[in-house]
């Protein structure tokens, strides 16, 4: 079942703490050179999963294979394939950037000073590397965090919510950097996030997790195009709603504000629908393709049910 070139292969991964099942039976594969998104709302089990991937938490059941090594049985060779930041970039604030890097380098084999200098240049931190880490901004800590993750020439980079706390410019910079790592250095990147838009912009493929279960995996493009939505602002919204219900290509209708209807429909049908509404003498004031959020996708998957316990 496992493709021989698969870099990260997770099968039947389960974690229980006490009686509570945090994640249940996860299955996904990450291929070399791809940016893989791990999308889910807060509390869905993303961090627990990531901690299992880097060996901080023992799975209750299931296996994690990294470049062919089983993480449980062959920890050292398996973990050598990985560089990671779990939650925040955890560094020693009372040491300088360079001292932090050397400290981590001593925990690995064959990391030369040349390599340290190289990754520090890569994250553009060479100006401040001899200052204490406690004087760094969050963005700089994030970059030093990435630098330490890259020290061991990992094949897979695991980042947990890497954009948390960064400003928009920092987020854009990080996105470019991650894409560069994937395309130029051939490093696979596994990124968790709770923001749909971020995953859309960054990732090739995605796994969506909700209540500890994987709801969906697949290319990012599939995910988004499957349920495009359009917001219609119509003065006579009640008539418009009745009319929308008669159209075969419109699947769901939601009333947002007092005269806004959000409907799920193919984007290429917008003009046609607009013309029809005009014929019906309805005053369309605004049409806007709607930028989906994660909740929308969950809603669409559960058929409009807002109940969280629905079988996603």
């Amino acid at each position: 079942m496992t493709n021989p070139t698969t870099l990260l292969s997770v099968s039947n991964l389960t974690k229980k703490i006490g009686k509570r099942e945090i994640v249940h039976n996860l299955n996904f594969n990450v291929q070399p050179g791809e940016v893989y998104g791990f999308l889910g709302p807060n509390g869905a089990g993303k961090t627990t999963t990531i901690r299992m991937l880097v060996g901080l938490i023992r799975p209750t059941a299931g296996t994690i294979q990294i470049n062919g090594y089983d993480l449980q049985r062959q920890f050292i060779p398996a973990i050598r394939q990985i560089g990671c930041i779990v939650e925040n970039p955890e560094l020693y604030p009372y040491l300088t950037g360079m001292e932090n890097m050397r400290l981590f380098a001593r925990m690995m084999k064959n990391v030369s000073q040349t390599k340290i200098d190289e990754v520090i240049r890569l994250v553009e931190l060479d100006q401040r590397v001899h200052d204490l880490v406690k004087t760094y901004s969050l963005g700089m800590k994030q970059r030093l965090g990435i630098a330490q993750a890259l020290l061991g020439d990992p094949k897979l980079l695991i980042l947990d919510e890497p954009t948390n706390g960064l400003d928009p410019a920092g987020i854009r910079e990080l996105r470019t950097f991650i894409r560069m790592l994937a395309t130029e250095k051939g490093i696979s990147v596994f990124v968790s996030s709770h923001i749909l838009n971020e995953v859309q912009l960054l990732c090739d493929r995605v796994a969506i997790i909700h209540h500890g279960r994987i709801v969906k995996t697949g290319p990012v493009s599939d995910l988004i195009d499957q349920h495009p939505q359009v917001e219609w602002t119509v003065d006579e919204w009640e008539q418009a709603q009745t009319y929308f219900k008669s159209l075969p290509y419109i699947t769901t209708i939601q009333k947002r504000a007092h005269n806004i209807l959000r409907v799920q429909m193919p984007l290429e049908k917008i003009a046609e629908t607009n013309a029809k509404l005009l014929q019906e003498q309805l005053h369309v004031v605004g049409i806007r393709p709607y930028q989906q959020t994660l909740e929308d996708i969950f809603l669409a998957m559960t058929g409009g049910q807002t109940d969280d316990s629905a079988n996603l």
Partner: protein
Amino acid sequence: MIPLIYNEWLKMVRKKRIWVITLILLVLIPIFTYAQFRTIQQTVAEMGTSDWRALLQQQIIDQQNRLSSSRLPEEWRDWIKLSIQQQQYYLDHDINPTAPGAPTFVRKFIEESVSLFLPLLVVVLAADIVSSEHTAGTIKSLLTRPVQRWKVLLSKYLALLLSISVLMMITAILSYLISGVIFGYQGWNMPVLTGFQEQNGQLITSFVHLVPQWKYILMAYGLAWFTCVAVGTLSFMVSVLVRGTAASMGVMLAAVISGSLLAQLAPTWSMLKYFAFTHLRLTDYLSGKPILIEGMSLSFSILVLSVWSILAILIAFITFQRRDVLA
């Protein structure tokens, strides 16, 4: 392994723990030195003589007077009797037990600090060695490296042993240098009595012999080092088990202090001799100071401390190896 120990040592030094402790010693040793100086002056003034034989004679008489008080508890009565015997021995053999000089201060300082002061400093060193990595979250950066968990923990333990040894050395050097300013630096070869043994409340003097003071100090520091390592090992375990630095320091301080209190409060409670922290005063076996709790000897104390230490190490390593890093 050496690079890992170096890492831990670097953290210890850069966290300024060692410097804080040196600073504490730098402040306290002059105070102790001065206190010692004042005590000697005071007794000399009260006795109206600087003749130590007269002083010792007076102390024996004082103790005998206390013995005649009827409200004295039985345990204290035995204790005082033994200490009179011992002072009589010094007097008969023409040995001045308080002969000043920096080496004497070094000896007295370690004898007095081994039960509480040094253990507290060791707790300060050891209590956050693992828990601080949890508090700061850096544990995640440590355990996601290609190094087995037990090696990470072992490097921390060895770094702790190293810093305890450095602490002992700093204590010895500072107490010698500072007290020498007042007492003078001579007295390494002064003979000191050791080899006291206690049997059924009798001080057995048949094994008592004289050793040069430097030899005595070496032995005393060796025993104190053992005490400190045992306290450090227990703190190390607590540091693994408890995630907060404040909590782990609190637990250990409470344990060390209650150990020394309990021995004085309830010396007849024989269960106390299985409690690690009542065995910290190992140097008392050298100086022949009577032990409060019955049935304790040097080898028994070392055995109790060793058993506790080994258990602590086992618990620490097993827990650390298996535990999920959740926060």
